[in-house]
């Protein structure tokens, strides 16, 4: 029993990897299939003869400019970003930029999770806080990011004390955390409030205080609610980072690279796809990071499901 268990687990893991790779291949195959059978100029309805830009496009173009072949994208990623001596391959530039963005997104995620969890505790501790704060937490997510980003940059740049001065990456972190805190605040509050009355009564009968109840009962009980919230927060932090980079002017990240390579869409169509795929990869890594965290928290989760 003890010898077969790891073996089957390993087999299962390999199967998961295999399915993941198959998924990627299938996606590329769908892309190439549509490119093969789809009309080169897409499909328009209601186009009037001689009137430029009329009609509604129902199927996208399949020309090499609109949809480069998957192998062209790979070849472009492998070739140097410019002809300058010592220029790195585009794919490496994309990976480096993705790493910078990952760092900023992770910081945004950490700040967002901390703030979100603190808000959840506040709302748990004070009924009145829940009534006063929760509407604002929800309201905060209705403010469009595009309006918020320049404001945060502007306010931040007014902050300086001593040797500290505001850097543009800090604006990006704040914007990422602004998107990340919401699911955590809501999810953690729901989780912390999830223990049944009987369990709370039991804690009370032990004359356990608020903190003891929190640590022994509420925190473990919140884990099943917290993990999806953390995963949402990670996705939000990545989206927030990429959008904020484009918006507020932070160099070196994947968002900036997407903006910078967009101009090549007409003449070097495979080039802009590299940073877009890099952003997808970034999202996957962020999700994987949370999955690792979830594995680390899994004992608590099991405890909860058994209870």
């Amino acid at each position, binding site marked *: 029993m003890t010898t077969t268990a790891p073996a089957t687990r390993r087999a299962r893991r390999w199967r998961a990897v295999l399915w993941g790779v198959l998924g990627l291949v299938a996606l590329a195959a769908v892309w190439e299939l549509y490119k093969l059978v789809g009309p080169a100029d897409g499909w328009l309805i209601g186009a009037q003869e001689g009137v430029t830009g009329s009609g509604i496009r129902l199927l996208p173009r399949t020309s090499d400019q609109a949809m480069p072949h998957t192998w062209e994208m790979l070849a472009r990623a492998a070739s140097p970003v*410019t002809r300058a001596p010592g220029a790195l391959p585009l794919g490496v530039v994309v990976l480096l930029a993705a790493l910078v963005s*990952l760092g900023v997104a992770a910081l945004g995620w950490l700040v967002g999770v901390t703030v979100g969890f603190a808000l959840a505790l506040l709302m748990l501790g004070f009924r009145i806080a829940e009534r006063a704060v929760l509407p604002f937490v929800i309201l905060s997510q209705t403010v469009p990011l595009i309006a918020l980003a320049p404001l945060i940059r502007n306010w931040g740049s007014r902050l300086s004390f001593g040797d500290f001065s505001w850097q543009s*990456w800090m604006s990006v972190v704040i914007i990422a955390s602004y998107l990340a805190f919401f699911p955590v605040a809501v999810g953690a509050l729901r989780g912390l409030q999830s223990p049944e009355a009987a369990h709370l009564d039991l804690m009370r009968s032990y004359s356990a205080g608020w903190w003891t109840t929190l640590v022994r009962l509420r925190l473990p009980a919140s884990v099943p609610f917290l993990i999806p919230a953390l995963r949402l927060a990670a996705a939000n932090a990545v989206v927030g980072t990429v959008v904020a980079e484009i918006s507020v002017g932070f160099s*070196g990240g994947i968002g*900036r690279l997407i903006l910078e390579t967009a101009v090549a869409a*007409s*003449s*070097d169509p495979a*080039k802009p796809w590299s940073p877009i795929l890099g952003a997808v990869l970034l999202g996957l890594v962020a999700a994987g990071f949370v999955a690792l965290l979830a594995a680390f928290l899994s004992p608590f989760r099991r405890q909860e499901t058994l209870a």
Partner: protein
Amino acid sequence: MKRNRIAAFAAAATATALVLAGCSSGGTDTDATDGGGDDLTPVTLQLQWLTQAQFGGYYLAKANGYWEDLGLDVEIIPGAVDIVPQDVLASGDVDFAVAWVPKALASIEAGANITNIAQIFERSGTLQVSWADSGITSPADLSDKQVGSWGFGNEWELFAGLTEANASGYTIVQQNFDMNALLNHEIDAAQAMTYNEYAQLLEATNPETGELYQPEDFSVIDWNEVGTSMLQDAIWANAERLASDEEYADTAVKLIQGAILGWIDQRDDPQAAADAVTAAGSTLGTSHQLWMANEINKLIWPSTDGIGHINEIAWDATVEMALDTKNQDGAQVITTDPPDTAYTNEYVDKALDNLESDGVDILGTEYEPIDVTLQEGGN
């Protein structure tokens, strides 16, 4: 189970370390202000777009140490989608900014207290490009056509031209960063800068011939020729600080002086400018970058009154068009004359005097553009 948790923890720790490594490299990127010596004056210069040869002169001034020689430690801050340089300047976040005159005039009317202290670009780089077989050769031909424009203050020369020609029935289409809309015949005419989008067209492959598109394939409306060109890249300063802070006014002269030396280097060696911006992190293709450096030179050189000197006639023409032109929403750039503080030649003339006494050629009367061969994709 236990080993699994340890492995998970180790993986999480590795990921955290990677993340922190990523952060630290992000941090040092922007931390250029502390780089210079102790006695240099720290100065920030906000650009209106990403690092590219459009701003080559500034990058050359920094790379070749012209500002450092004058006692300045200049940090060049690239723009982004939501960065409005003149507003960043007006709110006091940076010391100087590069912006187009009509856009800055609009900000001045909205309350920004800023001054044009050097008109680096003498000519406009904006074109309206259509297919050669479309029959569009003048603004009047844009009547009843689908006309692409970027908007956001980049459209005023187009509207001045349309108004002057009494064009009617046209539809303004929001244009993207690329030229696909024109190449796919979704619009009849596309806005293009000589130094950027026009080159994108010439770097694209014509599917019919398998070769790159040629200039003969397109018909170009140049606003300089139509007579509705407006002043573009200029260096702007905070008007209040110019009046009250002597040191800042002195810094303004030095900033212009160093920048002009950089622009002269770009004139004499466009390849050096292209290399400098590539070294500063631009990922634009090599031939595209050189093309841009060369086209920017044409907008500056030869210079009528010395690079940076604001020509009163050109300024008045831009202001007049800004007052008279309405865009598709009926909005206009400004409704009243700009204040006297909107421009001054005081600082640029000082800088030009200093340079002339050093024997620097500030006119470039002998300037000849080079020939740049664009490669596919600008590579």
